């Protein structure tokens, strides 16, 4: 076992006959910020969802911290009982992984029936059985960190998109994750609100949080990432430090893509 906090090896996912992810391998060290870029439909969102076990991959190996999942392609040959057991094992591990990995989605999905504070403390109380006072205390600190002190009692419908995403980050952080995943966190936001979300991510980076971002915000990917993954058609085309990917890509497909953003 190497020292990486996240390790993905030969991960493959099919949907019916279509290959969505093909032989994906990479690893992330603690504290790194990784950007995944690529055209729409290239599989980057699915990859993120597989890391968080929201989607089940068919074959390959995934390790988050000390939790490992290995899957073979031969599920069809198993007896039904074995299959059921396999599925149960997966679900148990999936929940453990989700405890360690927070995720922020593209769409705004705060719980609309709860206040900002209640949104943040719900999972710690329900899942981790934290006492309410402690959860509230943590929540207040997190709200201050994402720049929303004093917003405790607002309801989601009273927030702007950028504020919603920041509350959602605080909500994930309240579970004390080791890795944060972001699926195009700013693409649903008005341009003037993008900065406030990205700034929170920069702050977290400086505090040593491990983060993986699927993004179209190329400037952010270039300036904040430790390394960048370019994907196309379900495959990783190129992995490298931002200046290499954006300025001297070694693969013509990467070159073709990043050129779109140079103007």
């Amino acid at each position, binding site marked *: 076992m190497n020292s990486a906090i996240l390790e993905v090896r030969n991960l493959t996912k099919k949907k019916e006959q279509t290959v969505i992810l093909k032989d994906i391998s990479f690893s992330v060290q603690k504290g790194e910020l990784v950007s995944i870029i690529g055209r729409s439909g290239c599989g980057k969102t699915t990859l993120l969802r597989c890391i968080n076990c*929201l989607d089940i991959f068919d074959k390959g190996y995934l390790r988050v911290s000390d939790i490992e999942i290995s899957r073979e392609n031969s599920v069809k040959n198993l007896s039904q009982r074995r299959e059921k057991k396999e599925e149960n094992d997966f679900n148990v591990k999936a929940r453990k992984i989700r405890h360690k990995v927070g995720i922020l989605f593209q769409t705004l999905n705060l719980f609309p029936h709860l206040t900002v504070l209640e949104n943040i403390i719900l999972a710690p109380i329900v899942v981790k059985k934290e006492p309410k006072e402690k959860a509230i205390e943590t929540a207040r600190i997190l709200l201050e960190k994402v720049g929303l002190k004093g917003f405790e009692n607002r*309801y989601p419908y009273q927030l702007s998109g950028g504020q919603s995403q920041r509350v959602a980050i605080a909500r994930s952080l309240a579970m004390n994750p080791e890795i944060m995943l972001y699926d195009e966190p700013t693409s649903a936001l008005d341009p003037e609100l993008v900065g406030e979300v990205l700034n929170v991510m920069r702050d977290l980076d400086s505090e040593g949080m491990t983060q993986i971002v699927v993004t179209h915000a190329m400037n952010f990917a270039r300036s904040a990432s430790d390394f960048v993954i370019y994907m196309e058609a379900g495959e990783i085309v190129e992995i490298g430090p931002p200046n290499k990917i954006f300025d001297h890509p070694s693969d013509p497909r990467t070159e073709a893509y990043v050129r779109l953003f140079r103007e």
Partner: protein
Amino acid sequence: MEKILKAALGIFFVCILFVVSAFSKELKVLRWAADAESNAPYIFQDPKIPSNIIGFEVDIVNAIAEVLGVQTQFVQNQWDGLIPGLYRGDYDIAINGLEITEDRKKEVNFTIPYYITYVQLVVMKGVTNIQSLSDLVGRKVGALKNSLAERILRAKGGINVVTYEGEVNAFVDMKNGRIDAALVDAPIAIYYTAVNPEFEIVGQPIGEISYGIAVRKQDTLLLQELNYAIDVLQRNGKLREILDSWNLWNYMMETYLGDFSPTNVPPKKYQYFIESVGKKSKFSERIELYVKFMPVFFEAALITLGLSFVAMLLAMFAGLIIALLRIYGGKFLSWLAVAYIEIIRGTPLLIQLYLIFYALPSVGIKLSPFLAAVLGLGLNYAAYEAEVYRSGFFAIPRGQMEAAISLGMSKLQAIRYVLLPQTIRIVIPPVTNDFISLLKDSSLVSVITMIELTKVYNQIASAYYDYLGTGIITAVLYLLLGLPFIRIARYFEKRLAVERKAQKVKE
């Protein structure tokens, strides 16, 4: 010959008196059933005190109880349900103008007749061309459904027979010109024409009807006891006294009891009825009357509200579970939920109520009328609420479930803390609307002996032949019961709309 036969019968009854008296000690309370909306003079609400049930059959039951030395207890049941109810065991005897017929004798035992009468033609006053059955050929004639009158009319042939659930409906139709005449049991004809002078009785008595008290087949001892009591009443003149006071003594009873003496008891109960119902009351008197009904109406309205409320709670709870099973239950359970919803929604509530009330006791589950009503209404509406919840769940964006799961919640926790609270907010308006419709559907439970608002309306309306005024009162009461809930639904609808709008603008 006849006298000897009667004497022999008398001795026989005296003999079984000993058996009977032993039995009487066990039978402390005689539970008797009738439908209190079966019109004067049978069993109806006292025009002056609506909470009192009166009628010549009430007097007969009381006289029988007196002979047997037992208490009486009245059980209200729909007329159609009187015989099935016997076998549910809610009461021991049914007495309510039940004609002794071969068909009925297959299901129950009848006592010896306590009254014999005939049917009589009723027409609008001034109609002169209808005097007998032969005059009815080619005309439209009303009769009570499944009655002797109907059979007589059909046997005659060539008559357009229109059947009704109650005689009063036939009279109203006649007044409106839909039928030319009605053939009804004589007591009804006598009482109705007496207070509605625009109608009159014409022609000779037709046919013969014997009324008996129905008891369960297995209750042979009770049957003997009742026969004994009726015989006593026939002999000591008490039965005649009752019939005289109701103006119901007729030539058939004279022959039946061999008593041709002139009547010397004044028909004071008949007169009481004529006086309190007959005269066309002034508007102010009407209002006074309605004010007098109010406590009875209010009590019934409370029962309707309480019943509907408990039924709705059950529907909401069961509906939620059914909806959850359907969405998240896996193959088998979700199939089960779908089957439940389709079967319940696809079959009439009325049939479901009958099944719960009359069929379940045969497999050993005997529910009280209230419980049966709550269960029937609640389980029926559960199917509808399940679908409401389901659409509520689907109205929640998929991201909500994913967000909850990705925070480490189990599916169950996600449903409980994230999806369910939102679903409930979404379904409050449609569920409240359903409650209002349940409130009105609750009128159906009168078929399983529940006395609720509609039943009380029917009783009072039939006692006074006043369907308009009491009908309006009843309608207004239903409206008042539902109004607060309409308000609640609207409030939540508005609040939800505001939040949705804000959400949209932001997106």
